[in-house]
């Protein structure tokens, strides 16, 4: 058993906009690219050119169809990575203390030197956000790019997680969700951001923004436009009259 640290005030995390995510997987691959080169062991790919390629990814995009009552089916793209829970069951379950939550910013990490690859944390995580690397035998998870966000070798503007930096539609936001005045907290407040599976009591730091209401034009089509007055001279008659009121006419 590993204990969670006292809850700090700084809670770094992601806000993911499900209204804007087009499901392009840019975040998935840029995460893979950064993290296979950096924190800990590489994210290996077994059988990469074979019948059953199986690689480690810290972030994946799932797509779900949603069937509203009496409206067309919708498709929601749902990127998922570690939510850096305040009450992280993956940490408390760890027998070696390898899984830990940082006091200073709330990021949940795995100390690979102490990880014995038992897999208990992946079993405990209700979100399926951890993956065991088959080649390294250690547990891999989103680090919130802890080696980017404070990295003095990067320009300040780039000190954000790789997934946030690359997201083409701007659906991913990074910041301090412990600070109610931060841009991400404001976004959550404005857009009705929500916790994933709050009933589990994990208190995830990451938040999702819900899709906007869809298909309003189909549900209640705007009224048909009135026909122009064609009593005199038909459409061309109307056109002549309309043209007379143009600026520049007869100048």
């Amino acid at each position, binding site marked *: 058993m590993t204990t969670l640290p006292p809850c700090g005030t700084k809670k770094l995390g992601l806000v993911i906009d499900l209204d804007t995510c087009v499901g*392009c997987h840019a975040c998935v691959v840029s995460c893979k690219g950064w993290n*296979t080169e950096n924190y800990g062991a590489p994210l290996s790919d077994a059988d990469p050119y074979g019948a059953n390629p199986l690689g480690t990814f810290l972030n994946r995009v799932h797509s779900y169809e949603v069937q509203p009552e009496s409206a067309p089916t919708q498709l929601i793209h749902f990127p998922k990575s570690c939510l850096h829970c305040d009450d992280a069951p993956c940490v408390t379950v760890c027998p070696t203390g390898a899984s830990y939550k940082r006091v200073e910013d709330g990021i949940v990490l795995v100390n690979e030197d102490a990880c014995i690859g038992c897999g208990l944390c992946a079993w405990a995580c209700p979100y399926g956000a951890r993956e065991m690397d088959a080649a390294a035998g250690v547990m891999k998870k989103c680090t919130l790019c802890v080696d980017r966000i404070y990295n003095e070798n990067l320009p300040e503007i780039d000190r954000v997680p790789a997934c946030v930096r690359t997201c083409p539609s701007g659906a991913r936001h990074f910041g301090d969700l412990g600070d109610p005045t931060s841009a991400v907290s404001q976004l959550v407040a404005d857009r009705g951001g929500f916790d994933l599976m709050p009933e589990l009591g994990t208190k995830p730091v990451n938040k999702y923004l819900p899709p906007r209401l869809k298909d309003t034009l189909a549900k209640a089509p705007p009224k048909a436009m009135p026909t*122009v007055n064609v009593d005199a001279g038909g459409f061309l008659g109307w056109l002549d009259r309309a043209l007379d009121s143009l600026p520049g006419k007869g100048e």
Partner: protein
Amino acid sequence: MTAPFLDTSPPVSDEIRKTTCYMCACRCGIDVHLKDGKVAYIEGNRDHPVNKGVLCAKGSAGIMQVNAPSRLRAPLKRVGPRGSGQFEEISWDEALQTAVDWLAPLRATAPEKLAFFTGRDQSQSFTSLWAQSYGTPNYAAHGGFCSVNMAAAGIYSVGGSFWEFGQPDWDHTKFFMLFGVAEDHDSNPIKMGIGRLKERGARIVGVNPIRTGYNAVADDWVEITPGTDGLFILAMVHELLRAGQIDLEYLARFTNAPVLVNADPASAEFGLFLRNDAGKPLVIDSASGTPMAFDSPGILPDLTGTLTRDGITHRAVMHQIATRYLTKEYAPDTVADRVGISAERIRGMAAELARVAFDEAIEIPQPWTDFRGTHHASMTGRPVSFHAMRGISAHSNGFQTCRALHLLQMLLGAIERPGGMRFKPPYPKPFDAHPKPHCQVTPGKPLDGPHLGYVTGPADLALRPDGTPARIDKAFSWEAPMSAHGLMHMVISNAHAGDPYKIDTLMLYMANMAWNSSMNTRGVIEMLTDTDESGNYVIPRIIYSDAYSSEMVAYADLILPDTTYLERHDCISLLDRPICEADAAADAIRWPVIEPDRDVRGFQSVLVDLGARLGLPGFVTEDGGAKYTDYADYIVNHERRPGVGPLAGFRGEDGCGQGRGAPNPDQLNRYIENGSFWMAHVPAEAAYFKPWNTAYQDWAVKIGLYDKPLPYLFNLYSEPMRRFQAAAEGHGDRQPPEHLRERLKQAMDPLPIWYPPFEDGAVDTDAFPLHALTQRPMAMYHSWGSQNAWLRQIHGHNPLYLPKNIWDDHGFSEGDWAQLSSAHGAITVPVALNAALNPHTVWTWNAIGKRRGAWALDKDAPEATKGFLLNHLIHELLPPKGDGLRWANSDPITGQAAWFDLRVAIKKVPAPDAAQPQFDTLASPVGQGPQLLEQGKKS
């Protein structure tokens, strides 16, 4: 336990080299991080005009493309039969000598017997120059099987189109309607634009039978029936006219709505514009009521003008617009069933478009002056915008559908105005400022001019003296008069048939014609391997250049291995397919950020070498030596016109020339220092109304886009089309063959029309009730991504997606398989449910399916066992009509391959061992990939 020590500032890389992505045709700027001289990480370049720092899944996976085991290693000579995959590695000297031995005699006797077609080539201004110098008329790139309808309809209608030609005004638009966009075209800019619209709360409407990707995040989804977009658009045109919700001033000032057209059916000039002695179309000046040249200073043309001259009545185009589209034929009630959208919704959509365009009009306080000298105090805009791609263009009615979309935009006054669609330099450009096609062959000499261009009438067709097509693909013939990009999908079929003539050597670049880039894949494979009575191949010689072990490699006799995109020089040129933004002219380069570790050469450098060896004009000096050492040398020193070359930036001896200037030997270094791109901003007073804005026109001349101002009117009415239609009616010397007359009379309507896709008329639609489509996923580009170890874990196979009604009707459940059949063939494939789908449509991802043995994949890779191509169901010809003629499955105007006309039937079948059809396993010239990847492992 205390937290372990963690270095939060580790070194990122040894060096960043900035170049241009090539994981698709979007061409984003990338920062390539190197460690120990090897590529370690790729991210977007924040300064770059295209992607501004972001990067898609493909771009971020570039490292797996550069390290792919499928990379070809050395030139190859075929040693087994074609299609066996049996090759022998040879030296470059032998490879180049072989090519010269084949090509030199052809050039001296019959240059047309070389057919040189390039696929997803980004150097067409160079490859076309090479082909022109060689002297063959048979050159084109892949546009004919991609999106020529979109490009050509845009050029002919408004002088530009979408993607490389233009973009929505992302900053101001309030209503954005997206038609039929594959998820990978203009990949990152569209995603970035959608993000910005979402931030501002603008409405996004997706018109697409499939609700994935961009359509999934659209506020409203119009689940249109494939092939009916034109009807939907024209019904909205009907509504806007009926309600008088059109921009009259815009139409009068900037379009040919007021231009006078000969309205006398008995006249030989019927349907043509009335012109003055200088050839300028005439309009009636609303102030004086007299006819004047369209560009006369200060006039406001009259939209309803009529003029009788020499007993012949001429009426403004607007008369025809009103007459045509106010008829019941285009009323929402008439079209609703066919389109699959209720009349109430069509009327509502038109009303919403009009409301936003006119009630929410915007104004930018920027004065400007138009080409008639009229001063405008501000820039007013209609904040509605559109974007469309292959979904509407890859139909046999695609050209007219694209024209219809531009008609809609013009009536709303929404092009080149704040909030609407904006052109990107070098567009706008009138169609008649483009070259015309050239096809005059002289043995031993260059062709008489550029191959491709924009015809203005029958006189410009590429025909031989006997009236038969001059080109192997029959581009610019009566079968496809406005085929501005050629018809690559017909080359192998026509060469095999010897129709219109036989060729000797087929040279292809980056085009997987033996697999996903051909219709009727099995048939094409048979054509490539077919022999004549003497046992010789019907297509005698095939030269192919590719970087990877694609399916096409196996069918070539000589392989010239290309580099990957990080190992080469390229220019993304204003002469070609540029990367400009609406507010800036821009171009870019690639340079070898790493050196190849194999015996491969950039294909363009190989062409430079071959050009010198063959003594091609432009590739040799006066004393016969090589003019350029390689492609980089060409990029810097070639001049298309004096002072204008492939790259616009850093020209002149001091490197300060923008657009114009003498070649600068240090130019590539200047690009590299600048992040591998160059950009010149459009001045604020030139930002909108570009085709008519004197400030823009002058700026375009200054930076070398034009040599003189080229203001023009948008073409609601297409006079070139009318010239072809008139010929079909019997006017003029150059006459179409009898069997094409009726089709040309209908298709060449100078005003946008809709007609059913040809396949609907050629097959029994009761027997084949469904439409079948493909889409490209955002995370994979064509076949190139197939060997990418990371991307294939996202899209490793491609089920056939079925709507709920078909799923239920046939009793499908998860894991089931279906046989999908068309008039041409049948395939057996895995299915999956996709409820967010038009009820008469099935679809799958394009080009995921692979042939066993290709791409260095295991023979049991899911791409081969479960992946499949719809191509097997699509023929390059329509089913025979019993007239003995070969009717192309293409748009009759441009020849664009009608991929999306496909009609199919489905039935549930037991699961086979693997998707059907299967082909023999290809022998891999590169072996297979490793069993494990640990990218970034510290040694």
